[in-house]
C-alpha cells in the first residue's frame, strides 16, 4: 500500500486549500441558520412612519383624522418650535420623526363646505418615501370622504364610513422556499445548503485531488514507479482507493455538518444524499480528467474557478433557475450541475414532485460521471502511449 500511503501524504500537503473552502462554506451555513431568516420573511407588516400631528382645528372631525392616522402610523409628540420642525426637512432618516403635519384651523368647516384645499401644512424631507406614504394616506382619506359626501352622506357619516373602509386590510401571503418546503420533509434552509454544495465540492475536489494526481503522475515519478516491481493494476487500485477515500471523506464531512446544522434527515430528504453523492462522483471524475492533461498548478486553480463559478451561475446554484434567461437554461442543460439543482429542487419541494424527472436527473448525473471517467481513461492512455522517446 506504498502508493496509497504516498497519495495520502501528498494530499495532506494540499489540504490547507480544502480547509479554507470547507471552513468558509460551513461558517456561512452556520450564520444562515442562526440568523433565523425564515421568521423574518414569513411575517408581513406595513411600514410605519413616525409622525407628529398638530391639531389647530381641534374639532371632532380633526380629532377623528388624527386618531385614524394613529392607527396606521406612530404618533409622536414634539414641542412646537419652528427650528425643530424645520430640522425634519433636513435630517430625514437621521431624525426620530419623519413627518410633521398641522391640521389647519377651519378643517371641519371646509370639509363640510366641500372644500379640500389648504386643509394641512407639513414639514418633511423632500421626496422622502415616508412623506409620500402619509400624503397618499391623506389623499385616500379625503378622496373617500369626498365620494361619500358626493352621494349625499352627511360629514359625520362620511367620516365614520371612510374610517371603516380604509381600516380593512388586505391579507398578504409571502410565498418563498420556506413556506413551500415546509410542506415537504426538508428542514428549513437544508435545500439552500444542498443547492450550494456543488460549488464547494467542485472547488475542493479539483483544487486538492488534481495536484495530488499530478504529483503521482509526474513523468519522472511514473518512470521510476514503472521500473519497480509494483504491478500496474495494484498501482491503479491504490490511486483509486486514495481518491475514493478522499471524495467520500469530503462528502461525508458535508453530510455530517448538514445533519449537525439542520437535524437528522427524514422522508425524501434522504434522496439529497444520493443526489449529492452522484455530484461528488462527477466532481472526482472531472478532477481526474483535468489531471490527465497534466496542467500546471495555475491552470488547475483557474479550471476550478471557471467550472465552479461557471456552473454555479449558469445552473441555478447562485442564482435561482427561475431568474435565468431561457438561453442560459438551455445551455446549462449540458452541464451536470443543472441536473443536480433540478433534482435538488424536486427533492426539497421547490418544484412539484415528479418521480420520473427525479430519476432522469439522477441518471443523467451518473452518465456525466461515467463520461468524464471514460474520457479521462482515453486521455491517459493516449498520453502514456506517447511517452516513448529517443535517447
Amino acid at each position: 500500500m506504498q502508493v496509497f500511503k504516498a497519495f495520502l501524504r501528498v494530499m495532506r500537503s494540499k489540504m490547507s486549500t480544502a480547509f479554507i473552502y470547507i471552513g468558509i462554506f460551513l461558517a456561512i451555513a452556520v450564520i444562515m441558520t442562526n440568523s433565523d431568516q425564515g421568521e423574518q420573511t414569513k411575517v408581513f407588516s406595513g411600514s410605519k412612519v413616525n409622525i407628529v400631528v398638530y391639531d389647530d382645528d381641534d374639532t371632532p372631525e380633526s380629532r377623528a383624522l388624527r386618531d385614524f392616522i394613529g392607527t396606521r402610523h406612530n404618533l409622536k409628540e414634539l414641542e412646537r418650535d419652528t427650528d425643530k420642525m424645520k430640522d425634519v426637512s433636513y435630517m430625514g432618516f437621521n431624525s426620530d420623526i419623519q413627518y410633521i403635519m398641522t391640521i389647519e384651523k377651519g378643517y371641519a368647516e371646509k370639509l363640510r363646505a366641500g372644500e379640500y384645499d389648504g386643509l394641512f401644512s407639513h414639514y418633511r424631507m423632500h421626496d422622502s418615501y415616508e412623506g409620500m406614504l402619509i400624503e397618499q394616506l391623506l389623499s385616500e382619506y379625503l378622496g373617500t370622504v369626498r365620494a361619500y359626501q358626493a352621494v349625499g352622506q352627511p360629514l359625520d357619516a362620511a367620516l365614520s364610513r371612510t374610517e371603516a373602509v380604509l381600516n380593512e386590510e388586505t391579507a398578504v401571503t409571502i410565498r418563498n422556499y420556506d413556506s413551500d418546503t415546509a410542506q415537504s420533509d426538508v428542514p428549513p434552509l437544508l435545500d439552500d445548503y444542498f443547492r450550494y454544495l456543488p460549488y464547494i465540492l467542485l472547488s475542493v475536489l479539483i483544487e486538492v485531488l488534481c495536484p495530488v494526481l499530478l504529483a503521482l503522475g509526474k513523468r519522472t515519478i511514473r518512470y521510476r514507479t514503472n521500473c519497480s516491481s509494483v504491478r500496474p493494476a495494484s498501482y491503479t487500485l491504490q490511486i483509486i482507493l486514495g481518491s475514493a477515500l478522499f471524495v467520500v471523506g469530503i462528502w461525508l464531512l458535508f453530510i455530517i455538518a448538514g445533519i449537525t446544522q439542520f437535524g437528522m434527515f427524514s422522508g425524501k430528504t434522504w434522496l439529497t444524499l444520493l443526489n449529492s453523492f452522484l455530484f461528488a462522483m462527477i466532481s472526482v471524475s472531472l478532477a481526474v480528467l483535468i489531471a490527465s492533461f497534466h496542467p500546471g498548478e495555475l491552470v488547475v486553480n483557474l479550471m476550478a474557478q471557471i467550472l465552479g463559478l461557471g456552473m454555479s451561475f449558469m445552473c441555478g446554484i447562485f442564482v435561482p433557475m427561475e431568474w435565468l434567461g431561457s438561453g442560459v437554461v438551455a445551455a446549462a442543460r449540458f452541464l451536470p450541475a443543472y441536473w443536480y439543482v433540478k433534482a435538488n429542487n424536486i427533492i426539497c419541494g421547490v418544484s412539484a414532485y415528479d418521480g420520473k424527472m427525479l430519476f432522469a436527473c439522477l441518471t443523467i448525473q451518473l452518465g456525466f460521471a461515467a463520461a468524464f471517467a471514460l474520457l479521462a481513461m482515453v486521455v491517459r492512455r493516449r498520453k502514456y502511449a506517447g511517452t516513448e522517446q529517443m535517447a
Partner: protein
Amino acid sequence: MGETVVKLENMVKRYGDLIALDHFSLEIQAGEIFGLLGPNGSGKTTTINCLLSLLSYDKGEIEIFGKKMSPTAYDIKQQIGIIMQEVAVFDELSVYENIDYFCGLYIHDKETRKQYVEDAIRFVGLEDFVKFRPKKLSGGLLRRLNIACGIAHKPKLIILDEPTVAVDPQSRNKILEGIAELNRNGATVIYTSHYMEEVEQLCTHIVIMDKGKKIAEGTKDELKRMIKNTETVTIEILELPEAVREEIGRLPHIYETEYKDDRFTVRCSGGKHNLIRILDVLKQNDLSFGRVYTELPTLNDVFLEITGKSLRDKED
C-alpha cells in the same frame, strides 16, 4: 566475475524511419561497472528503456540474471535500481518519506524497509536533512536524494542514466565515489554517459555506441590500444619553418603533424622517447619554444578515430 547479469542480443528499435538501436548486442558480467558511452542521441537511454521493458522493441532478446526480461518480470525488476538524469522525487514529501516511498515499492517488510532507508540516508550523507522537503535542498543534495531513492532497496543491478548531467564538479566526484562504493558492496553497475572522463575513471568495461550501433568494446586500455595514436605532443612555438616540420614528420613513430595558432601538434604511434627526438630537431635548428606538454590518448580520441567526430556536443 564470470556470471552474466545482462545480455542483450541483436536489439533493433525503430521510431518510424529512424533506427534507434541497430542490431545492438552486449553482455555485462557480475561485479562490473559497465560504461555505455556515446554522444547524445546515440541510443544509450533507448537501450536502458528497452532493458527495463519500458519500451517495446522490434527485434532482439533481453536476459537479466539469466531470465527473459518482460514488463511483467517483477522478480527481475525487484533486483534493479534506477537512477536517472532527472531528479525523480516528490516535492510534497520529506527526504525520509521520499526514500521510504521508493524503497517501499520493492521492500514490503516495515522493519527491513526502515533499516534500508536509514542505510541509504547514511550512504548519501543526508542524515541532517531527513525532514527537509526537496525544494529546500541544494542541487548537489537533491542529486544525492535521487541516488538514495534508487538504491535504498539494495538492488543487485544498478542502472545510472547520465546521473551527473548539470552537476557541479564537487558533487560529481562524490557521486562517482558513491557508485564505486556500491560496486565494491557487490552491485553490478551500468553507467551511461557522454562524459568520457567519468567513464574512464569509473568503468571496468566500456561499450562505445553511435547511431544505435556498438562501435567499440573493451576495457579502457583495450580501447586505447585499438587506435594508432599513443601519444600527442604539443609545443608552443612562435615560428616553425616548413622544412623543420617535415623533418620532424619523418622521425620514426610520428604519423601526423599540425602547426596552427603558434601551436605545433605531433601525434605519435607507439615507440619511446618521441618527445626527446622532437626537441632535439628543434634545438639543432636553433628554434626557441615555450611550453611543451604530452597527452596520452583518451576515449574521445578513440571515438574520434573510429567515427571521425567528437564524443561531446559543442555545448558540453
